[in-house]
């Protein structure tokens, strides 16, 4: 009887433990489909990308100095890789209540000013960022299409020099996508994405 009680308690505490911890993707995990609103007002889903080799998902924003420093490089990634089968999707999960510069209107303005040729989606509920385990901006997830699934192939930073693109000698995302295109193993699968913390809504 006592044992049953103990194990019931244990089971309950485990449930609570897992409930309290947001699940997040690791390398090799399949990604659950998501559907979010783009700056043009249309909805974009990961499952819309049927004839690609993969997708470069970047959690980004308008306001973070690191995002600004990386903006040209983010645009270049889409230019270089969308034609090779790896288009880019940018997602802004920042709460506009906490970061007014990240409102949907401001996102539209940035996308227009910078001539974004990739979706810039708003993650209003922040659920997509949470399920990915995105914590910072910019935070990159390279996904590889395997059958009808998208599997996480790389998580982390764009390269190893935020300040100066020309001085970066480890271009993590390019190296990862190049390796996937060549059918080779990715040299660095995971790095820490240095940046601004995602501005979570107040609970």
């Amino acid at each position: 009887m006592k044992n049953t009680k103990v194990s019931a308690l244990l089971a309950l505490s485990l449930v609570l433990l897992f409930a309290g911890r947001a699940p997040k993707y690791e390398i090799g995990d399949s990604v659950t489909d998501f559907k979010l609103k783009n700056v043009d007002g249309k909805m974009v889903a990961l499952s819309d990308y049927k004839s690609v080799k993969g997708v470069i998902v970047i959690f980004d924003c308008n306001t973070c100095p690191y995002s600004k420093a990386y903006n040209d490089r983010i645009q270049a990634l889409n230019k270089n890789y969308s034609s090779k089968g790896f288009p880019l999707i940018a997602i802004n999960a920042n709460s506009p209540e906490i970061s007014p510069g990240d409102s949907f209107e401001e996102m539209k303005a940035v996308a227009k000013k910078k001539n974004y040729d990739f979706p810039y989606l708003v993650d209003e509920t922040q659920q997509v960022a949470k399920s990915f385990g995105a914590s910072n901006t910019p935070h990159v997830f390279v996904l590889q299409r395997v059958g009808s699934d998208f599997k996480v192939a790389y998580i982390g930073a764009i390269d190893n020099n935020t300040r100066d693109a020309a001085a970066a000698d480890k271009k993590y995302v390019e190296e990862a996508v190049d390796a996937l295109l060549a059918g080779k193993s990715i040299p660095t699968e995971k790095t820490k994405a240095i940046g601004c913390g995602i501005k979570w809504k107040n609970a």
Partner: protein
Amino acid sequence: MRKIGLVVFVFFCGWQVCAQRVEVIKFDRLQNIIDAKAEKIQVINFWATWCAPCVKELPLFEKLNADKKDVKVTLINLDFADKEKKVESFLSKKKMQTEVLLLDEIDYNTWIDKVDQSWGGAIPATLIVNPKNGKRKFIERELQEGELQKLLAEVE
């Protein structure tokens, strides 16, 4: 001669004391602070002038630095190294007294794990180390009033 000395003194005051200078350091210097075999508890805060929550919590560290002489507070600035002047004018404007070191290490993935394995790479972040018993705390978020005191008690 004495007059020249006075002029030189006034010049240095205007430039050095009245406006805090920021020393630009490499990671080995930070490692030495983390590993210091000192008597004092080390409180190390990572911040940048552009980071709003960091700037908001700075007064907590200023107050700790002024109040607790048995604690060594170091503010590690993560503005880009070419922004030294910007950091210095920020510190003068805020009349900051705590020691500020600008960490010039752009390849973050080479050192961030050495500060703490759990650090996801966002600021503000604060590391508290008690060299006497090896206890440490690492917090990757903005601290609230009174939290530093609580954390200090936990590493005692």
